């Protein structure tokens, strides 16, 4: 089941295991320059507000009600990253406009091992964009659906779905207990027993960023595909969000240049023990927002000037804080 708590989606699978939980939130962030250079990880500037579509049914598109799920507000050309929390291993499929963000393939409700079309938490702490090459992603950037920028429109020729789609599968109970519960008991030693604007946005590929998407070390048979839960996260233009909900959307984030000029940190995440996936040729072939804008004759995208050597803070599996410090 999925619950919405404090602007995060709480997935839990009590039928699989009492520990089988995973929390996902969507972080506001800087849009990195889309200038063919690659950048470190930008910061988290706080969670996007999330709302049940059913709470605003009369002011939302009919298709959104059919999809169910939640929605969040984004400004045009605003970026986001997806933040995963949880200790129980889960396989998570992420799509934008029903295009898989890891492989570029159309949405399916099952996991694929070859090519791997999902990320594994807790090993994967974040996902910032479309996997275009080994250790390289293109940032998720919101653009109005129907203008040809989104990955969905570039790959299918139509902007039908938009939004973000998530499907989580917990690790099978037996695999988890074999791998973790018994191991932790052995490690602990003997112990006592105890108890108006067009509202719909799609995600387009933005600037390049260093981020590895890690290979599944458990194998596809570790995941309980009978116990998955999925959620459609609609992206709403911030102006339309205000009209629909009467709630103010968050302020626009600062530009990458202003943030860097203020001496605030960027991040690099490195886990030497894991292998990274190669990235998807389909996604590598997409035009970025800046390239699409030029092709469409709309000129250069603002806020796209290169950033000279930002200050980078290294984080690893044991120090994952990338949010809430600003």
């Amino acid at each position: 089941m999925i619950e919405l708590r404090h602007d995060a989606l709480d997935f839990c699978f009590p039928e699989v295991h009492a520990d089988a939980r995973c929390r996902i939130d969507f972080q506001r962030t800087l849009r990195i320059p889309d200038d063919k250079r690659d950048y470190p990880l930008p910061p988290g500037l706080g969670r996007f507000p999330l709302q049940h579509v059913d709470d605003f049914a009369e002011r939302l598109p009919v298709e959104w009600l059919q999809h169910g799920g939640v929605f969040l507000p984004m400004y045009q050309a605003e970026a986001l990253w997806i933040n995963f929390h949880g200790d129980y291993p889960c396989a998570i499929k992420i799509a934008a406009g029903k295009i898989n963000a890891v492989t570029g393939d159309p949405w399916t409700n099952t996991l694929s091992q070859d090519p791997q079309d999902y990320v594994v938490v807790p090993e994967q702490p974040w996902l910032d964009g479309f996997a275009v090459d080994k250790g390289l992603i293109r940032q998720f950037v919101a653009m109005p659906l129907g203008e040809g920028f989104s990955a969905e429109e570039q790959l299918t020729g139509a902007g039908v779905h938009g939004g973000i789609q998530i499907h989580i599968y917990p690790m099978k109970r037996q695999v988890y207990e074999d791998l973790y519960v018994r191991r932790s008991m052995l490690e602990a030693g003997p112990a006592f027993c105890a108890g108006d604007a067009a509202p719909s946005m799609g995600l387009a590929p933005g600037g390049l960023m260093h981020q590895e998407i890690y290979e599944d070390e458990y194998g596809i048979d570790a995941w309980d595909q009978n116990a998955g839960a999925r959620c459609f996260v609609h992206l709403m233009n911030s102006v339309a969000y205000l009209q629909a909900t009467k709630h103010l959307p968050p302020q626009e984030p600062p530009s990458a240049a202003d943030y860097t000029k203020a001496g605030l940190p960027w991040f690099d995440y490195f886990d030497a023990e894991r292998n990274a996936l190669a990235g998807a040729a389909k996604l590598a072939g997409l035009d970025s927002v800046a390239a699409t804008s030029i092709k469409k004759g709309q000129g250069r995208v603002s806020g796209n000037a290169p950033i000279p050597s930002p200050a980078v803070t290294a984080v690893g599996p044991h120090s994952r804080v990338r949010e809430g410090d600003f």
Partner: protein
Amino acid sequence: MFYILHMTFGSYVRTTREDLRARDKRFSLRQVAERIGVEPAYLSKIERGDVAPPSEATIRRLAADLGQDSDILLAMAGKVSSDLQTIIRARPQLFAELLRQLREMPDDALLRVVREVRDGDW
């Protein structure tokens, strides 16, 4: 949804139907009665409160026709839907205790207990 049921079943049905009829003539007494499979005279008596509320099946058809929540109309008619009765009968002590504990809980706390993010068709 949590409602305080001030109106009687019949007057609520009549008010709802007449509001709809003001915008759409298909919600006349005769046409609604025909769609839900009862005589117009019987529906008229229900609306005036001259007879007891109809069966669960008829209330469900009426709710669907008027675009109302069937659980709310059933509650106004003093009925509990058969699917809920089945759930309670399966574990009567557990659900009786659960409902008693939830009785005094504020709406926002109840929503936290029972609210799931709904998955749809996509």
